[in-house]
């Protein structure tokens, strides 16, 4: 399908994003409105509140994007919107808005999987990794491994059995008395910490490609309990250092196992946890694999990546349908 400009809408969690891209996936303009501050105050995402924010902001966000770029909505030839996975209430707002807008403008609408967005967000840039590759998503809601074939089809080959990597950072952060979302703070504290072999965590499951972090959470809980009872002290930054290293090594380990299992030497990372400096460092040290990690600013959810995935889909002639629904998974 040929088009001039594509409008991308993202509302899967607590960030509303809108972007306009051209046929080559080059970003013309984008805007992101995050409700993270609210979530922060509330100690987590409250779905009802997030959904209300999306609905309140959507029109003005689009208005601001058009004003900034001096575009009119008549330049838009196709719309793409995230329809899965995410919080149902939030997804419904973006999808309903997009369905209304595309109906009024009489242009096609494309439902995009958020995961595809994370893995294809480098599309149109010179360092984009061509498939086949192994994709790893580590965020507050996901820890999964995908195989992307030559035709850009994704197949999930590993998932988390319980908590996601970001979720475990946030939960353990809360045990340590850090504010939600704790991932960034743990990262910061860990930079000031050093190796401490008194702090030990259990080894995680070795089977298959699935992650499992909940045992680690329990272990940390027990450790903290024990430390309190025995008045044992440890330095918080050392604890963060060890804990972060433990999780990130696990994340990396499974990714490497996947590459080996499928004989693939290309690795693409995506999701909020990729902002972690230790993980980024470790990834850049991998010499036998070619790795793509998003820029720091692109780690959180945004509409640009949804737009890029959509452009890629249209380029490769993937079947598109307007008749799609939202899904939480």
């Amino acid at each position, binding site marked *: 399908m040929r088009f001039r400009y594509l409008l991308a809408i993202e509302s899967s969690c607590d960030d509303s994003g809108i972007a306009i891209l051209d046929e080559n996936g080059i970003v013309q303009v984008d805007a992101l409105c995050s409700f993270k501050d609210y979530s922060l105050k509330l100690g987590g995402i409250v779905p*009802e509140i997030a*959904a*209300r924010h*999306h*609905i309140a902001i*959507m*029109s003005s966000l*689009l208005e601001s994007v058009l004003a900034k770029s001096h575009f009119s*909505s*008549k330049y838009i030839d196709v719309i793409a919107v995230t329809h899965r996975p995410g919080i*149902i*209430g939030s997804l*419904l*707002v*973006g*999808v*309903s*808005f*997009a*369905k*209304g*807008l*595309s*109906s*009024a*403008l*009489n242009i096609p609408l494309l439902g995009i999987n958020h995961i595809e967005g994370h893995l294809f967000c480098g599309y149109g840039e010179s360092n984009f990794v061509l498939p086949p590759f192994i994709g790893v998503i580590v965020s507050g809601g996901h820890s999964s491994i995908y195989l992307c074939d030559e035709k850009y089809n994704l197949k999930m080959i590993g998932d988390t059995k319980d908590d996601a990597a970001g979720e475990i950072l946030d939960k353990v952060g809360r045990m340590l008395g850090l504010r939600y979302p704790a991932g960034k703070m743990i990262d910061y504290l860990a930079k000031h910490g050093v190796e401490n072999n008194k702090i030990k965590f259990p080894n995680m499951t070795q089977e298959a490609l699935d992650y499992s972090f909940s045992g680690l959470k329990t272990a940390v809980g027990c450790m903290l309990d024990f430390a309190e009872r025995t008045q044992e002290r440890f330095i918080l930054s050392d604890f963060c250092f060890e804990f972060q290293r433990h999780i990130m090594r696990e994340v990396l380990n499974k990714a490497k196992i996947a590459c080996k299992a499928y004989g693939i030497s290309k690795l693409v990372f995506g999701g909020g946890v990729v902002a972690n400096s230790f993980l980024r460092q470790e990834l850049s040290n991998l010499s036998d694999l070619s790795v793509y990690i998003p820029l720091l600013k692109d780690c959180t959810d945004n509409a640009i990546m949804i737009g890029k995935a959509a452009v890629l889909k249209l380029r490769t002639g993937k079947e598109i349908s*307007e*008749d799609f*629904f*939202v899904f939480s998974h």
Partner: protein
Amino acid sequence: MNDNFYWLVVDTSFKESLVVIAEGENILLEVKVIQTFKSSENLIYYIKYLLLSIDMDFRKINGIAIGLGPGSYTGIRIGLAAVKGVAFPDRIPILGFNSFEGIAGNGAGYVAVPATKNQYYLWRAGSQECPIITSALPDNVYIERVGLKGSVIVKKIPKIIEKRDRYISFRS
């Protein structure tokens, strides 16, 4: 101007969504759509076909009225987000109304909407208070039945349209 002012009225607060298309005070089309879990997501396409059936499209609509409940949060959000999308390109003004007031229309004393377990959300027309949950219904209630069997169609839109002048002035 009255004759050519086209309204789209949508209310997705209850299980039966309501779609009305009116020209001035004349109702051109009034349809109730029984919503299933997923079909509400495609309501806007359905409305598009309804408009087509009377030779209209979204661009001819001059004003949109949308029911804001009380009712299903998810339903209201789907309806509201969809009409915001529809309204965007031509900046069609959107007007929210109380869904119970919409049902009451002219002259109803009370409005009752079935809740669970033979109970009703009961609202006295014109009152500023929220609906109450009750199983005892006063006389003269309009019953908004949910479900296919024995659906009672209640005329409900006139009230919204009655207030038309106020809303048109808001547009200019």
